[in-house]
């Protein structure tokens, strides 16, 4: 099989796992597509580095692209063949599906986020709620 065929197959298999086997249905969730949009941006950068510098070189006989790595065009985006986008999508979707599957089964579901950013937000929300309930007392309670 060519890389093109395998890459399409990879996406189809990952999508079938997501929708019909695991039934995690990340493909129908905003959280997934938002995360993927962030990941694909960085994928284009790292892939551009790997392909543009010829750290990895693709065989044009097995891809849509016909020639050497170019910045854009000839079925390439930032030097990388478009097949890489499908390869990356399949890998990200499978990874996130498995993460959700294990979480659903209770593995590592707790505890939830606890960084400084979250603590600050939660403290702010608590303060806002208190001030909505009793403006004078909340104002006095603020540090």
């Amino acid at each position, binding site marked *: *099989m*060519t*890389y093109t065929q*395998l890459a399409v197959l*990879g996406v189809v298999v990952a999508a079938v796992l997501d929708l019909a086997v695991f039934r*995690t*249905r*990340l493909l129908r*969730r*905003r*959280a*997934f597509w*938002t*995360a993927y949009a*962030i*990941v694909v941006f*960085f994928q284009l950068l*790292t892939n551009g*580095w*790997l392909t543009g*510098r*010829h*750290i*990895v*070189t*693709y*065989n044009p*006989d*097995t*891809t849509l692209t016909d020639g050497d790595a170019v910045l854009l065009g000839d079925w390439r985006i930032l030097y990388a063949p478009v097949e890489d986008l499908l390869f*990356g999508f399949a*890998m*990200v979707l*499978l*990874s*996130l599906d*498995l*993460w*959700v599957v*294990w*979480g*659903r089964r209770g*593995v*590592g*579901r707790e*505890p*939830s*986020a*606890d*960084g*400084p*950013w*979250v*603590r600050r937000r939660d403290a702010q929300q608590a303060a806002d709620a208190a001030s909505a309930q009793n403006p004078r007392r909340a104002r006095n309670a603020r540090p």
Partner: protein
Amino acid sequence: MPDALLPYSYLGVLVVILLTTLPLELYLGVRVWRRPRRLLLTIAPVVAVFLLWDLYAIDAEHWFFDPAQTTGVMLFGVLPIEELLFFVVVPIAAVMTLEAVRVVKTHWVVGDER
């Protein structure tokens, strides 16, 4: 790039990915690194599937790697160790990104909620 760093051209990318996602764990608090069992169970099948794909692709000459820009540590005689690490690092970064989205968008459902 200095010649001495050339063998780390690929490995360096993986280090950069790990370092740039680390604030999600330390500052945002996604708790991905701190759930090693769930992370390991997630990564292992991905590594297995994509290593097989990689080995097939190398055998079928879909792609090849520059020996001068990789460390030279090879798996099965043909696969740069960077490829294995790529299949570990990228899923970690992807999971951290999803969890980061959830931290910010607390009402967005993913499917593992109670």
